[in-house]
């Protein structure tokens, strides 16, 4: 709770502080809890509904923590043109890793691409993607 208040205090003076606060809370706790929503709403003089509305709007913020490690696989057009759909279909089921769809990592000339944390991987084939998933599991 103390850390939460520190995060809020660090951004409170900025213009439009809600997104920077939510980013930090998400990074710190892995999700934006009901408790955090209450505290943020109180500090920014917003209703809980308003804060909840923002949390639920953006793909990056989660109300519940994600237990499994996440691999973000780009499945936008440029990666489709380079065969990501076949790659995704052939991916062996793995219950210990969450494969999340992302639309575009901006590496559209060297797809299929994936991102783990902030590390990006290009020119994936079945073997490389399989190895990435295995390394996470």
């Amino acid at each position: 709770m103390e850390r939460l208040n520190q995060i809020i205090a660090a951004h409170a003076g900025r213009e439009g502080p809600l997104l920077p606060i939510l980013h930090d809370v998400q990074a710190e706790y892995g999700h934006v809890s009901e408790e955090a929503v209450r505290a943020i709403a109180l500090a920014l003089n917003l209703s809980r509904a308003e804060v909840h509305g923002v949390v639920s709007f953006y793909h990056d913020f989660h109300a519940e923590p994600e237990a499994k490690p996440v691999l973000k696989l780009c499945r936008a057009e440029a990666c489709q043109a380079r065969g990501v759909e076949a790659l995704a279909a052939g991916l062996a089921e793995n219950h210990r890793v969450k494969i999340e769809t992302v639309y575009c990592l901006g590496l559209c000339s060297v797809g299929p691409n994936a991102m783990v944390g902030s590390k990006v991987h290009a020119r994936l084939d079945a073997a490389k993607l399989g190895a990435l998933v295995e390394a996470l599991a």
Partner: protein
Amino acid sequence: MTPNNAIGVRISDDALALACGADEVAAAFVAAGCTVERVSSWGMHWLEPLVEIDGEGFGPLEPSDVAAVLAGASAKAIGRIEDHPFIAKQQRFTFARAGKTQALSLDDYAAHGGWHGLAKARELGPEATIAQVTESGLRGRGGAGFPAGIKWTTVAKAAGTQKYIVCNADEGDSATFADRMVMEGDPFMLIEGMAIAALAVGAHRGYVYIRSEYPHAIAKMEAAVRACAQLVAPFELEVRVGAGAYVCGEETSLLNSLEGKRGEVRAKPPLPALEGLFGKPTVVNNVLTLAAVPWIMANGAAAYAQVGYGRSKGTMPIQLAGNIKHGGLFEVGFGVTLGELVMTVGGGTASGRPVRAVQVGGPLGAYHTPAEFHLPFDYETFAANDGLIGHAGLTVFDDTVDMSAQARFAMEFCAVESCGKCTPCRIGSTRGVELIDRIRAKGGRQPDRVEALPQMHNARKVERSLADEITLLEDLCETMKFGSLCALGGFTPYPVLSALRNFPEDFGADAAKEAAE
């Protein structure tokens, strides 16, 4: 023989190079005793990781290739990089420094023509600066193509002392990466462009709104903003990070997001130029628009306007992506034909199969066929041919593509990313997915239980044929095109209708014709 430590090796530290293994290659050169400098990317992506030694290029390298390169016996040598046809054919204004400088080196930036534009703007003053931008013919590079000078004039003349410069760096379109390359390769250029805009319209604060999928660009921009704060003062600049919503690339939705709200689109008017961020007059420009400004100021509007085609002045950093042999960044004056870009520069498909479709302008752009390869790259020409150039990303597909699947994806993407504010986009896209699914299943549709009720006077009581379903899809697209608040719902019909018109065989056109006969 030269000792290795005297050999200067240049390798990009752009996200794309890193994704292709540039760090591992750099480490191998360091281990061999070389001095490694991490620079911006040349934009020849099929050659990444590309290594430059005394102007000579080698790529795509793996750590195991290092010994051969140092021995002068590498099969991956491509000759002098600057003489490579992919580079030699370009007119690089915005990307003049690409591959040549370290992204975060103020010395490099200053030594390669940096800050001349801002100095010129300070010398000329606000009015003459706006006049230069207007005369250059620079248009919004985000896709709308609105003249930058007119937007700036509106903001400059707007009442109030508090004004903002907002840079739209929410580059969510598939096939586009030029914004990312500017931010990761030449961040000071973008900052200089924003500082010039601020001076021109009388703003003191600016924001760069970068999508969260670009962690490397965010880190570099934040470092660059800190490093040059004194040079652009009194203008204050801050980096803000998006949160995974594609629609926030739409300017009014981006402003809401910056304000800390849901990224829902606003109705226009009021224009952001008059009531933008926090209700204040705001310039919202794309990264490439602002990044073009320092060159225009330093070299003069006439030099910029001299290049181009029709009303599309200057150069466009075109992004060659998807199934293309030579993918990367190709900056050239407007007017180059689509066929030159795909076949001559891009070398056709990476798979070696024939090109079947090229989507121009990202997920909201039309699918073109090789029959349209004669079209010159220009805002008006593409608009007249039921397409758009958007942010100038080209996605090439070979003949294995199923165009009805691509049309379905366009609708699905719209359904996933819709902000939900207007009905045609929010609901139309979902109905579009269902409709295309039925078309793909080649089935018509019987009236459902609700439609069959006697009180449903207007509902159709007889079976819909496949041809009826296609007419319904066209109808739905018209509704979305003219009824949506922003380009997401409004432009989703472009890929859908172009796929339908240019590739009717993928939508069971033969079956529909047979059934009709």
